[in-house]
C-alpha cells in the first residue's frame, strides 16, 4: 500500500519536474513546479519528516512559488514567446548532463548505504527546536542575519528613487 | 509614533462603532414587504397604467395630440346604423364611433399629459402596476371593443361612404361644368 502511494508521489514529482524543465510555456513550468513541491513534500512525509514536509509546503508553495509566479506573470508576453532551454549550447549541456549522471550513478552504486531498522515516525518539532536553539544556535542566528541583510538590501534596491 | 497608535486605536474604535450600528438593526423591524404576498399600499392617484373608458370616448383626439411620444392612436369612423351610441357620462352625445383606440404602453412615458385635456375624463392613470407581458407587442393595448372582422366591416363601410362622397362630388363638379 505504502509502496503504491510512494510510487504515485514519486511519479508526480518526476513528471512535473520534467514539465518544469521541458515545457515551452514558462507559465506552465511555474505551475507544474507546484506539483513538484507538493510531491517532494509528500516524499518527506514518507521519510517521517512531517515538519519539513509542511514547512516545504508553507515556504516553497505558499511563499517562494507565489513569488516566482508573480515574477513570471510580470514578464512580457509570456504566452507567445517560447523560452527554450534547449537551443543554447546544446552539445555542452548534453555532455555535462551525461557527466553528472555518470558521476552520480557511480556514487550511488558504489556507496555502502547505511541501512537501519524501520522506525515509527516520531514528533520532530521538539527535537528540531531544541537543536536550533541549542546546538546550532550560532549557525541559526548567522543565517537569520544573512537573510535579514538580504531582505533589507532588496528593499533598498527596490525603493531607490530615480535621481 | 503617538500618531500611529492614535490611528490604530481610531480605526479599531470606529470599527466597533460601525459594528454597533449594524448590530442594533437586529432589533429593527424590516422596512420592506414580502412582495407577492404583501403589497405596499399604492395611493389612488398613482400613475401606473393608462386606462381608457371607451364608452365615454367621443373621439376628439385631444389626448393623441397631447402625447409627447405619440403612443396613442385613435381611429374614428361614422357610426354604423346598427351601432347604438349612448351619451357619455358627462351627457355629451357621441357622434363619432371610436373604432380603434390603441396605447402602446411600452412607449408610454406615464407623464399623464393626455389625462388633462380630455373633455370627458375617459382616459386615466390607474394604480395597476402589474401589467408585464412576455411579448412587447402585447403591450399595445386596444381599448375599442371590436374584433378585426368588425373593424374591417367598418372600414369597408367608411370607404363606401367616401366613395359615395367622391361620386357625389364628381356629380356636383360635373353639374357645375
Amino acid at each position, binding site marked *: 500500500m505504502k509502496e503504491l502511494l510512494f510510487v504515485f508521489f514519486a511519479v508526480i514529482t518526476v513528471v512535473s519536474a520534467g514539465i518544469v524543465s521541458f515545457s515551452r510555456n514558462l507559465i506552465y513550468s511555474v505551475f507544474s513546479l507546484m506539483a513538484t513541491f507538493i510531491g517532494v513534500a509528500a516524499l518527506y512525509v514518507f521519510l517521517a519528516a512531517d515538519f519539513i514536509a509542511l514547512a516545504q509546503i508553507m515556504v516553497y508553495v505558499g511563499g517562494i512559488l507565489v513569488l516566482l509566479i508573480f515574477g513570471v506573470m510580470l514578464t512580457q508576453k509570456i504566452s507567445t514567446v517560447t523560452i527554450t532551454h534547449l537551443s543554447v549550447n546544446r552539445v555542452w549541456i548534453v555532455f555535462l548532463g551525461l557527466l553528472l549522471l555518470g558521476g552520480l550513478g557511480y556514487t550511488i552504486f558504489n556507496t555502502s548505504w547505511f541501512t537501519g531498522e524501520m522506525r515509527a515516525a516520531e514528533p520532530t518539532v521538539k527535537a528540531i527546536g531544541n537543536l536550533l536553539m541549542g546546538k546550532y544556535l550560532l549557525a541559526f542566528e548567522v543565517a537569520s542575519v544573512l537573510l535579514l541583510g538580504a531582505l533589507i538590501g532588496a528593499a533598498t534596491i527596490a525603493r*531607490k528613487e530615480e535621481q | 509614533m503617538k500618531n500611529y497608535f492614535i*490611528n490604530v486605536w*481610531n480605526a479599531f474604535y*470606529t*470599527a466597533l462603532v460601525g459594528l454597533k450600528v449594524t448590530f442594533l438593526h437586529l432589533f429593527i423591524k424590516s422596512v420592506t414587504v414580502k412582495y407577492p404576498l404583501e403589497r405596499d399600499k399604492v*395611493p389612488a*392617484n*398613482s400613475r401606473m397604467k393608462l386606462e381608457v373608458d371607451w364608452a365615454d370616448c367621443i373621439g376628439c383626439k385631444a389626448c393623441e395630440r397631447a402625447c409627447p411620444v405619440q403612443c396613442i392612436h385613435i381611429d374614428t369612423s361614422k357610426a354604423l346604423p346598427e351601432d347604438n351610441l349612448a351619451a357619455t357620462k358627462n351627457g355629451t352625445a357621441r357622434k363619432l364611433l371610436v373604432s380603434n383606440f390603441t396605447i402602446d404602453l411600452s412607449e408610454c412615458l406615464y*407623464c399623464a399629459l393626455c389625462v388633462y385635456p380630455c373633455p370627458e375624463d375617459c382616459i386615466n392613470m390607474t394604480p395597476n402596476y402589474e401589467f408585464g407581458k412576455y411579448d412587447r407587442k402585447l403591450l399595445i393595448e386596444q381599448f375599442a371593443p371590436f374584433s378585426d372582422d368588425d373593424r374591417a366591416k367598418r372600414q369597408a363601410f367608411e370607404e363606401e361612404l367616401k366613395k359615395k362622397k367622391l361620386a357625389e362630388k364628381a356629380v356636383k363638379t360635373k353639374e357645375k361644368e
Partner: protein
Amino acid sequence: MSRIRTEEMIINMGPHHPSTHGVLHLVLHTDGEVVTKIEPKIGYLHRTFEKHAENLQYNQVVPYTDRTDYIASMNNNWTYAMAVEKLAGVEVPEYVEYLRVIFGELNRLASHLLFFGAFGLDSGAFTPMLFGFREREKILDLFEMTCGARLLYNYIWIGGLSHDIPPGFIEKTYDFLNDFYLRKDGKDALTEFRKLLTANRIFIERNADVGILTKEDAINLGVTGPALRATGFPWDLRKTEPYSIYDRFDWEVAVGRGEYGSIGDNMDRYLVRMKEMEESAKLIKQALDQLPSVKKLDVRSAVPNRIRPPKGKEIYFRAENPRGELGFYIRSDGSPKPARLKMRSPAFCNLSALPAMAEGWMLADLVMILGSLDIVLGEIDR
C-alpha cells in the same frame, strides 16, 4: 540605479462596469495599479433630448427633462419651468413657489441620499446603500402621494404644478424630517450615517487627501455644485443669485473645509453633500412652517393654455441642481415649440474634471473619485 522599466497597460473600464454609474466608458492607461491617463467616452445613452425638444410643445418637454437627470427630476422640471416662465413672461403664485421649494429640496435630499448609498457602495460598504434607499423611499412615498409617480414626476409645470399637495402631506413631511435629522435621542438617520460611514477610519483613509481639486482648477473646468463648493468656494446659485423664493429662508451654503485632509478632496465632496442634506432639511422645514401664512389657491390657475413666446426671444436660465448648475438656453421663433433648446448639464461638465482629479491615483481611488462627482449618465449623454 534606475527604476525598473514599466509598461503602460490600457484597460477599458466600462461601459458595463459596476461602478461607472451607468454606461460610461473610461479608457484607462495604468501603470500597475496607478492610473496615469483617463479618457472618458460618453454617448452610450444619447437620446437626442435637445432635438426632441424642438419638435414638442413647451409643456410637452417637461416629461423629457425628467429623464435627463432621473435622480433629481423635480429640479429639472423646475429649472425648465422657470426658464420658460421667464421666456414667456408667466407669473407664478406664491403658494406654488413654496411648494416648488419644498419639492425641489426634497428631491435634492433624495438625490444626495442616493449619492450617500452609491458612494458607500463604491468604497465597498454595502449597507449604506440600503440605508440611503430606506430614507429615500420615504421621500419617494411623499412624491407618489402627491403626484402619483415615484421617479419621473412631470410635477412642476410651466406656471404651476400638476397637483396640489394631498391632505396629510405636511404631517408626513414633518415626520420624515424628524426621523431624518431632528430626533433628540440621536437615533435619526443622519447620525446613523455619520456613525456608520463618515466616522469610519477606513472610509476616511480611503477618501481624505484623495482626488484633490483646487478652486482654480474647478472654476477653469466649469465644475459646479457640491464638487465646486467642496473646494472652498461658496458658490450656490440659491444664495448668490437667489431665484424663486430662496432669499426668504435662513440657511447656509455648505463649503469644503478640509476637515480630514486638504480642501477639495473626496472627503470634502462627501461632507459637503452630507451637510447639504441637513441644509435642505432645514429649508423644507422653514418652507413648511411658512406655508400656512400663504394664501392657498389652485396650483394650476396660472398654467397658460398655450405658450407662444415672442419671436426671436431667447433666454438662458440656470438653477442649482443637486449635481450643480443646470442651465437651459431656449430660443423662441414665435411658435408653440422652442426653436432651439440647449441644456447645460452639470454632470457633463463635472465629468470633464475627472482626468484632472484622478490621474496619478490608484484604480480604487478612481472609483471613489468618480463616485464623489455623483454623475448621472442620463444627464451626461442626454
